[in-house]
């Protein structure tokens, strides 16, 4: 650890931060454009080519808007809530690996730069911890506003977030369980880089008995853990408070939900955090189930720097497939009622995830250790 290493870390973090800040307005634009297409409208088309700059314009506009502080609000708590929304959102993306490690030689010293904010030993725990920290933004915003709709929305949102976080966690356990037996790699891991590494190669390494076709199927967790994937995506949509689970800000009944009283740049921060979370959750789904940055790099065809960038391109493609699903679901499904939401969470997803975990444990157990009591 010397100054160059530290510089590389800062560079990496700033790059991640900049990536999120640039990608988020584009995602908002993409969502508005796609929704418009699906609903036979034009969507934003004035600011910049194809309306590309619309979200930037919106953001700048919000900076010039008055920040109203409601009379009954608790000032400091009211200010703290957006902090709790933004900081966990940015930290969550830090553990997602977004490319193969690069090797540089600076001053004759070889330095490996992992293209990942940081590779924690307990990465998946960190992910869950951050998404539970995000609950505080909602609770604080709802409580400190001193107004009815935010309080109702905040309490609702909290119950929703914790219900679906349990399902999210159980789906990730199934992935950890499966990847702990991934052949050669020796034992399991809670680090996301480790989970990506265990998905490299093709299915032939695990299931050679299915013949030559397995050479062409990548060894993604998606195939053996499909049920966990479905549960994960549903829970992720609910965790990010997206339609059809957007009861938190159900306009017809709660006005704006927990951020009703927020205006100007503080509202912008909530909005930013929501879309950063959508992107991180999609990247996380791609990392856990779709093989992360694994993919052909075309070493021999493309020039060196391009093939080094290919893993990042693969991850972005996979991430955007999931982001598209998020948007598609929003355009397709009407909002659920609160009792339906709770029923889906506690009576379908959680028992389903536990059941799937038991099935996985038994199947993998029998394949690995043979039948018990024999």
């Amino acid at each position, binding site marked *: 650890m010397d100054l160059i290493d530290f510089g590389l870390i800062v560079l990496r973090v700033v790059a991640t931060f900049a990536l999120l800040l640039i990608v988020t307005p584009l995602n908002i634009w993409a969502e508005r454009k796609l929704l418009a297409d699906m609903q036979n409208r034009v969507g934003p088309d004035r600011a910049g080519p194809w309306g590309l700059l619309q979200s930037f314009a919106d953001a700048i506009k919000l900076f010039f808007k008055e920040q109203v502080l409601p009379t009954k609000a608790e000032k400091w708590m009211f200010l703290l809530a957006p902090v709790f929304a933004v900081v966990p959102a940015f930290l969550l993306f830090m553990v997602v690996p977004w490319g193969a490690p690069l090797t540089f030689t600076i001053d004759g010293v070889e330095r490996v730069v992992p293209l990942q904010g940081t590779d924690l030993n307990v990465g998946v725990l960190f992910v*869950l911890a951050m998404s539970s920290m995000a609950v505080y933004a909602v609770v604080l915003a709802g409580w400190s506003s001193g107004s009815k709709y935010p309080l109702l929305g905040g*309490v609702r949102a909290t119950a929703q977030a914790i219900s679906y976080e349990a399902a999210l966690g159980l789906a990730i356990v199934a992935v950890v369980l499966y990847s702990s037996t991934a052949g050669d790699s020796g034992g399991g891991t809670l680090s996301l880089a480790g989970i990506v590494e265990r998905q490299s190669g093709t299915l032939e390494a695990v299931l050679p008995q299915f013949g030559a076709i397995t050479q062409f199927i990548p060894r993604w967790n998606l195939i053996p853990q499909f049920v966990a994937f479905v549960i994960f995506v549903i829970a992720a949509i609910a965790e990010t408070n997206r339609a059809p689970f957007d009861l938190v800000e159900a306009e017809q009944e709660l006005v704006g939900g927990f951020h009703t009283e927020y205006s100007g740049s503080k509202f912008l921060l909530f909005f930013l955090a929501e879309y950063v979370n959508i992107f991180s959750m999609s990247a996380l789904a791609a990392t856990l189930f779709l093989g992360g940055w694994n993919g052909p790099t075309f070493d021999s065809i493309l020039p060196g720097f391009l093939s080094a960038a290919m893993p990042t391109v693969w991850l972005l493609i996979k991430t955007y497939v999931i982001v598209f699903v998020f948007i598609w679901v929003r355009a397709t499904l009407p909002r659920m009622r609160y009792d339906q939401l709770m029923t889906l969470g506690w009576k379908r997803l959680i028992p389903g995830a536990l059941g799937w975990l038991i099935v996985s444990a038994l199947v993998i157990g029998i394949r690995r250790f043979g039948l018990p009591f024999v």
Partner: protein
Amino acid sequence: MTFADWLSDPVNWVYLAIGAAVVASAFRVVTSQNVVHAALFLVATLAGTAALFLMMSAEFVAWTLVLVYIGAVIVLFLFGIMITRAPLNVEPGLDNPKARPLAAVVSLGLFVLLAYTSLQAFGSDQLTDVGTPTDTVTLAESLIVRFVLPFEIVGFVLLAALVGGITIARRDLTPVEEEERGAV
């Protein structure tokens, strides 16, 4: 190792600073007149404790603390505040000077007990490899192999706690009563 030696290491300064912050926010938990503020100070206390665990290389424990205590238990507290008479603002009735001597005795006793057991268990042992987090291998094995009985008992205690909680909290209401109290 003398105290001066201990102080000369900058890591210990960080340790001291976090420890002081933890104690200060723990103090505010009990002195705060606003229950929601008290719960938030408890979040700060627990976050500081998690940081201390991180410094002692217990990565898994640190994040478990964040996940279970900050992410779940404090949310439970907050819901507890919301479902009761909702004293969402300052509540002078929270102070109970009569109970102070008893509280002092209880907390002092707890402190002595914890200090004694920690000293008995670890004495002057030193962490040799500070900065190298314990991997989950050791943790999982000691949890499921060595301490398997406490592990199962924890499951049972959790069940008992919830059954007890429901029995206290929930008198099954009739739909009419529910309707009167207003649906969510």
